[in-house]
């Protein structure tokens, strides 16, 4: 009797009770989200050049991604921050746009490297080589460089192909980088993890040496001085080369990359990569085609790098081999280690944090120390390798999963993709008999 009464009571009280609870939770989240957005925007607009303001705005965007509010509202608020506040701050101070483009490039690079290292567990230390490939594919034909070794260009396009070339080069850069990935991947597929690391490192060096020396016998890469100036893309006749407009291209690239990564992670390929990373022998036994999957991971990761290389060339207006050194590869590795291997949100946060540190806070601090009359040996901008090294060591010893570890979801594979395909030559039941 008592039990029924209690059950009845709870049954009656729950909707209102739960609803109130939901509402308060929702309301708190809503108020917090709005407040955070408004405060960050106000700060960003009031002090556009301040690194702290950018940090607050990006922090607000991160908080929004966690907030328990309606998805559409989250999208609206984040769009407001990324498409309203930051570009507006960029018009007040072009440095903001410039920094953000750099950040977008690194976020996409880190996401691409995360596919290779985080998802597939293949330590690639020459990732910047693909980036260089994309940058050169675009730059050679978007400058006077092509005219130096191709007569057709000398006659028809001595200054490069023009603004439309960016869009035509994009698929080409992705393809070239993917092919570079496969070319590197094919000989190294059977190697163990640590050999792979050192071979990819060597590959990065080789690409740099080739870029530096391919000015003889035919001047293809421009040698050590590199290529300059590089033409900016146009879109419907608009010049997209200015930081304020390039910002949008960068943002689109990053959003597309992030969506692609999310889709890959939860696809059949993503699961195969994870299986391979955890135990390649077990994965092979379960029918994962290791070589195919490794090549796929290498090529896909490389193509993201190649695409971002183009954006980098546009942003810098010049490229030279020194831009594509080992330090850059390690910098990107430090980003994904800091954020969390295999964690998309973590990688984005890690890349944003390291970029802010490198291009905003360290220069700020070194300007400050110069103001105080400290010797230039304490110039913090030069300490980047030290900082990258420390990030790697400290994270490995104290927090191997990164700041925002990857979460594992239990997935119902049958519900996701329907019945599993029956392998040729037999059915599951015949094995059971």
């Amino acid at each position: 009797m008592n039990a029924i009464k209690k059950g009845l009571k709870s049954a009656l009280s729950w909707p209102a009770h739960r609803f109130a609870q939901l509402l308060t939770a929702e309301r708190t989240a809503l108020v917090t989200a709005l407040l955070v957005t408004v405060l960050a925007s106000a700060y960003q607009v009031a002090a556009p050049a301040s690194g702290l303001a950018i940090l607050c705005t990006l922090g607000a965007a991160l908080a929004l991604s966690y907030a328990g509010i309606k998805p559409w509202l989250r999208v609206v608020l984040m769009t407001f921050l990324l498409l309203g506040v930051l570009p507006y701050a960029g018009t007040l101070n072009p440095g903001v746009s410039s920094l953000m483009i750099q950040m977008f490039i690194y976020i996409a690079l880190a996401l691409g490297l995360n596919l290779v290292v985080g998802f597939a567990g293949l330590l690639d230390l020459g990732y910047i080589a693909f980036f260089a490939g994309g940058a050169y594919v675009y730059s050679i034909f978007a400058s006077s460089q092509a005219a130096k070794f191709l007569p057709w260009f000398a006659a028809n396009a001595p200054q490069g192909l023009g603004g439309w070339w960016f869009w035509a080069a994009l698929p080409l850069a992705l393809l070239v980088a993917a092919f570079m990935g496969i070319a590197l991947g094919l000989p190294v597929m059977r190697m163990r993890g640590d050999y792979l690391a050192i071979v990819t490192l060597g590959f990065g060096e080789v690409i740099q040496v080739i870029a530096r020396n391919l000015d003889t016998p035919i001047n293809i890469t421009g040698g050590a001085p590199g290529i300059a100036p590089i033409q900016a893309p146009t879109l419907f006749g608009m010049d997209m080369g200015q930081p304020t407009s390039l910002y949008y291209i960068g943002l689109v690239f990053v959003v597309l990359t992030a969506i692609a990564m999310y889709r890959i992670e939860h696809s059949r390929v993503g699961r195969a990569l994870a299986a391979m990373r955890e135990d390649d022998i077990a994965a092979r036994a379960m029918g994962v085609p290791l070589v195919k999957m490794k090549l796929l991971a290498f090529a896909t990761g490389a193509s993201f790098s190649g695409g971002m290389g183009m954006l980098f060339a546009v942003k810098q207006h010049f490229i030279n081999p020194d831009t594509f050194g080992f330090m850059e590869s390690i910098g990107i590795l430090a980003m994904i280690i800091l954020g969390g291997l295999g964690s998309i949100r973590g990688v984005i946060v890690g890349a944003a944090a390291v970029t802010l540190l490198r291009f905003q806070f360290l220069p700020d601090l070194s300007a400050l120390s110069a103001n105080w009359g400290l010797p230039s040996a304490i110039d913090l901008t030069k300490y980047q390798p030290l900082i990258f090294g420390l990030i790697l060591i400290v994270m490995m010893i104290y927090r191997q999963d990164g700041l925002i570890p990857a979460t594992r979801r239990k997935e119902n594979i049958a519900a996701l993709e329907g019945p599993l395909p029956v392998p040729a030559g037999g059915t599951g039941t015949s094995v059971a008999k």
Partner: protein
Amino acid sequence: MEEGLRILPQILISGLVIGFLYAVVALGYTMVYGVLEFINFAHSEIFMFGAFIGFEVLMFLQKTSLLTTLPMVISLILTMLAAMIFSGALGWTVERLAYRPLRGAPRLVPLISAIGVSFFLQDAARIIWEALRGNWQLAVPPLYTGVLTMGPWQVAGAPLQLQVPYGAIVIMVSGLIMMFSLIWFVNKTKVGKAMRAVAQDRSTAALMGVNVDRIISTTFVIGGALGGAAGSLFAIRYTSITPYIGFILGVKAFTAAVFGGIGNLAGAVIGGLLLGIFEALGTAYLGPLTHGALKGPEYKDIFAFLILILVLVFKPAGLLGRTVGEKV
């Protein structure tokens, strides 16, 4: 072609000299790999620190004008000894701080930590010597500057002369001494036996009463000392050092270790010598072979990488290594 053959002996000698350096550094890689199955990325930086410590000792000797009064052999031994002690201690510290906490972690974890250590040490050296000397690119005080001239002999109707710098001879002699003492140490002493036991099977060695942690530390100290000695020899022979000399040389020495069969001491020596000779040949003859289209010295660093890929694809066990089945 005649001219090309004429310079061959000289090329072989310079290749042999750099090959001895690769071999001594490769010993450090291969020892650590044998015991821990792990690429000690920071080994190249330990080599680099050896060069800088050697530089400091030579600077001190020069300042106190001992460099001219002491016999050269004493100066050499002092320089190498200081570099070996420092680098050995550095190797021990690195293992203790950055690798030991990660023992038993997935393979990539200590590797990434080692890359971090490598970057940290490289930049630390730059900072330290920029503060100490105002510059990180340093000219080493000359110790062995003379050149041994052999010949001229009459070969095919023209005189042939060989020139070997004393610094090169020092590298070859001390390299040989170090290699043979190491091989003797590992094969004949009790600690060496324990080392081989740990390399073969760590847990069984521990059960047999071997102090595994101490043996691993010893490995790092010896490997580091060898790297430091190679660094100081490099400084004496090539007289110009930067914090970045370790990186490429380290990759090449590792290639040498893989070439000879990783984990195998004699293999590391043979791999290092062969790699040095191949590289010298490639550098010298790439230009003439392509009729000047490609400049050999510019592509010098690629040869080692090509050899590494070829070895790993066609003979992953190396020249002297055994093929090891993967543990399931």
